[in-house]
């Protein structure tokens, strides 16, 4: 286990080193700070996406779901479109990215909390019902966003479109500081609930039997996921397949049920695939395609493979 993590760490470091130094041609003062910001954003996003998907799959006991299913990134797009629709693209909240970010993240957490609270007030509602409702809300937010997008001025639409696709070329580096602060705060908060993840993977009944305060803990995890997804979406845009891909790869590589290894493994795989993918996009395809296209393509193929495999095992 430790050897696998070691190898992954080395691969990740090597790839980052290549990314930082390739084609620098001596202009270190110019190249390094720019690339450093970019790589920090990539590492942060990769880690967040892997982690939040892993936790989400564990609490739902389902290996083909990602947090996007409860409509979190649709909500983010809806908020962005809504602000532009009402105030125009030059408005304060859009200009000040930190304010915009905090409002969006706050609303997303509120949404996840309300969804949970409303559903779990009555008993016997299982987590799949929550997912179904989330799915419907996600579609609603998508449709509302599209509706507003066709009404607004084409120039304004450009601003929206910019946020619609995951891109590491215009990473929101202004948000890096606040993102790092939030991620560290979330990590500290998460630490004391970490031990419950292994048991939650056994399902609700076993978790309760073993003394996990189930509703309380699952709610905390959903809030953590909501904060993390909003950070990742704000930094680079919706990039959902990546989580599915790396978490399942982590399960296959690590072959363990212990989340302390799964978390580290999936975060490292995520960083490796993002940095590696970005190198391919920038150096092999010379920007003729985007990373999200590649991620979604590979992710889609892998998703079909997963479906076929699950289908067979029944």
């Amino acid at each position, binding site marked *: 286990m430790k050897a696998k993590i070691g190898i992954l760490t080395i691969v990740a470091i090597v790839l980052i080193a290549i990314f930082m130094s390739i084609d620098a041609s001596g202009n270190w003062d110019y190249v390094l700070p720019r690339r450093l910001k970019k790589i920090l954003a990539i590492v942060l996003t990769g880690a967040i996406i892997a982690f939040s998907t892993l936790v989400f799959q564990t609490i739902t006991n389902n290996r083909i779901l990602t947090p996007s299913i409860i409509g979190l990134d649709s909500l983010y797009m809806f908020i962005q479109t809504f602000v532009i629709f009402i105030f125009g693209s030059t408005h304060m909240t859009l200009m000040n990215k930190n304010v915009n970010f905090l409002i969006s993240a706050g609303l997303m957490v509120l949404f996840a909390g309300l969804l949970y609270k409303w559903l779990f007030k009555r008993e016997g509602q299982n987590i799949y019902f929550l997912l179904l409702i989330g799915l419907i809300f996600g579609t609603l937010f998508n449709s509302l966003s599209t509706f507003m997008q066709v009404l607004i001025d084409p120039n304004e639409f450009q601003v929206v479109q910019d946020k619609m696709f995951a891109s590491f070329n215009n990473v929101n580096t202004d948000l890096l500081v606040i993102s790092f602060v939030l991620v560290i705060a979330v990590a500290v908060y998460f630490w004391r609930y970490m031990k419950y993840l292994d048991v939650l993977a056994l*399902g609700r009944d*076993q978790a309760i039997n073993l003394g996990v305060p189930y509703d309380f803990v699952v709610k905390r995890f959903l809030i953590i996921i909501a904060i993390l997804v909003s950070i990742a979406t704000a930094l680079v845009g919706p990039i959902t397949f990546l989580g599915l891909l790396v978490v399942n790869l982590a399960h296959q590589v690590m072959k363990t049920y212990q989340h302390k290894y799964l978390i580290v493994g999936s975060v490292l795989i995520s960083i490796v695939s993002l940095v590696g993918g970005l190198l391919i996009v920038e150096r092999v395809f010379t920007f003729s395609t985007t990373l999200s296209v590649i991620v979604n393509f590979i992710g889609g193929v892998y998703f079909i493979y997963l479906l076929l495999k699950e289908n067979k095992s029944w």
Partner: protein
Amino acid sequence: MVEIRNVSKQYGSKNVVENVSLTIAKGKITSFIGPNGAGKSTLLSMISRLLSKDQGEILLEGKEIGQCKSNDLAKKISILKQTNHITVRLTIRELVSFGRFPYSQGNLDEEDWRYVDEAIRYLELEDIQHKYLDQLSGGQRQRAYIAMVVAQNTEYILLDEPLNNLDMKHSVQIMKVLRRLVDEMGKTVVIVIHDINFASCYSDYIVALKDGKVVKEGTTEDIISAQTLKDVYDMDIQIQNIDQNKICVYFA
């Protein structure tokens, strides 16, 4: 001692469990019997806090279970449901080690592992303890889950249809293990069971439920009678004494 006082549960407008009051004696095997939909499993789930109750009280040694901390309860009472679909791939030993979670919070010390080893030995799983659960037969898997509950070392052990889908040999094996848990280790076992002959041969007390109500409760001797069984199952069931066991003949 578990005291159940006027407990009710509704699903929608249907009363699944209606005003049930019971006392479960310590150090005995108590079986819940009754037709499908009688509310046996629901009652068991409420005792083990998997389901909340709509009315009434359930007292564990004088304390309402809703007031207890979940982790403290996990050291006193354990439940095994009939379907245990686990998406993670675990070996028997790993599964059994989960039984120590209430004590160790995931960091098992030597004592915890001793309990794990003992539970594996108790269920005679030593030879296959490193096999994965999906490689096991139904009987072995059921024993692995029971080993986990044994490792949890709770005074009260609740089992929802532990013999579900098992053949005669494995059923007898599991019932003997439960009997030993009670006789040798002083545990209190409560099971939901469909096979009334197993209930008759292995339990000390029987609670007969029908339509969410207790029809009759008492010692095995009292309950296994043609009249009571007719009240519960609406069937004429003959009872034969074979080697001091009361055997119900209901096949023809």
